[in-house]
């Protein structure tokens, strides 16, 4: 494949052509001729053939949603999760407050104190999902990769608080120790198997 069509940046002219549509007839004879040509052209049967072909091909595109779900991309920003350290299982959050600071819709609220080891302890951490715009700044700014976005996009619940409680957002400790906690790739992450779908790299020109 030559690079010529990629190097030609004059998009206005290269691939466009005028569709061949005749003008509307003005005379009665012209209208009559149009009627005759439309009547015997068989266009209606083309339509019948197209839908029949699709029925016989049986190329069904339905996703049976509650049973089947489409995979969510690694960059997808749904309801937040709080991560734990591997092996030890301690919370990653160090209570630095950067997420609270950067949050542009002011929906993160945290309270901290010093614990008995003089380590900062998060006593209260809530995210008001009614305000959150899911911009991802909190996950971006977090130095410890503690607050991340999950892939949980099904947000139907009888209590809004079900998503915002710190302990609910936190990875369960047994799965963290077992190493089942998924890292959030975040900004710039490449969708899996993307190489197979990209035919030509945009950097070619």
């Amino acid at each position, binding site marked *: 494949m030559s690079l010529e069509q990629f190097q030609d940046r004059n998009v206005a002219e290269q691939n466009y052509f005028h569709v061949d549509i005749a003008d509307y007839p003005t005379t009665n004879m012209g209208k009559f001729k149009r009627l005759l040509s439309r009547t015997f052209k068989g266009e209606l049967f083309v339509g019948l053939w197209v839908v029949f072909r*699709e029925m016989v091909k049986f190329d069904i595109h339905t996703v049976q949603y509650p049973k089947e779900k489409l995979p969510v991309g690694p960059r997808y920003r749904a309801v937040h999760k709080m991560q734990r350290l591997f092996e030890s299982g301690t919370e990653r959050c160090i209570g630095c407050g950067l997420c609270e600071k950067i949050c542009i819709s002011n929906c993160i609220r945290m309270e901290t104190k010093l614990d008995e080891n003089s380590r900062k302890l998060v006593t209260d951490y809530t995210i008001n999902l009614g305000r959150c715009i899911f911009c991802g700044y909190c996950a971006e700014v977090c130095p410890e990769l503690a607050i991340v976005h999950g892939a949980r996009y099904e947000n139907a619940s009888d209590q809004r608080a079900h998503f915002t409680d710190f302990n609910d957002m936190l990875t369960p400790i047994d799965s963290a120790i077992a190493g089942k906690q998924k890292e959030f790739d975040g900004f710039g992450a490449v969708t899996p198997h993307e190489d197979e779908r990209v035919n030509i790299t945009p950097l070619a020109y």
Partner: protein
Amino acid sequence: MDMAFLIETIVKIVVILLVFSALAGFGTYFERKVLAFMQRRLGPMHVGPYGLLQIAADGIKLFTKEDIVPQNVVAPIFKIAPVITAATAFMAAAAIPFMPSFTMFGYEVHPIVADINIGILYILGVMGAGLYGPLLGGLASANKWSLISTARAASIFISYEVITGLALLAPLMMVGSLSLIDFNTYQAGGFGDWIVWSQPVAFVLFVIAGFAETGRTPFHLVANDHEIIDGFGTEYSGMRWGLFFIGEYANMFFISFVIAIIFLGGYGDGSGLGALALLAKVSFIFFFFLWTRAAWPDIRPDQLMWLCWKVLMPIAVINIVITGIVMMF
């Protein structure tokens, strides 16, 4: 009138009512599936295997839904309108021979309720009266969309009835009888004897008029969902609306039978194979009703009137004249 005849007739009526009410339900399932496959969808899948029990779910919904008679409607007419649609659809079935006559327990059964000598005239008349359902229902509904639908029903009614009658006149002249059984025996010789070969124009015209009569897609104007909500059915709920639905689908089946018997040879020589062939023809015509719904756009009411009066009626008249001339010499 002897007792046996009375019992036989009542049994036939009950069988036709039950079979075609059930078929109307199955028709909705079939329609949803066929349309879905043509649009690369799956259609109903959740209730039962492959969504087969969707019919039962729909039935339960229709039967148990609250029956609402809204304010300002003309209640008696509002209530009787769906009954007219359903009743006339089934009344039309009285003169249709659904199968060749067969012997059961040493008793010869004619699967036609009444072989009257004006069969097809009766069927078309009763089916035409069926349009009073949408007409009265829409007028009584106190709803603007229903009123528009009523106006459309009236305009369609005066358009397609002419075509139905004139298109049928030519085959009638050839057969010389109005009974559908006579139509069938006229074509009993086999494939080559079908009236569709000698009257192709009348066949096309009658099919077009059948689409207008049942209100199917190219002429789906009376209850056009995307323009006038559900037309005459907007104010109806529950089983009253269900009666409209059953009437519409029963009408589709009956008009399929009429087309198959008049033009496509019916049940042929009356053997079991002929009966199966009739079922196959009816199934194909019913499938064609669904097929066009997936493929073709709707036209406007004024276009339908233009089509019927300015195009189809002259063609039908010319067809009759040519048939007459050919028969004379």
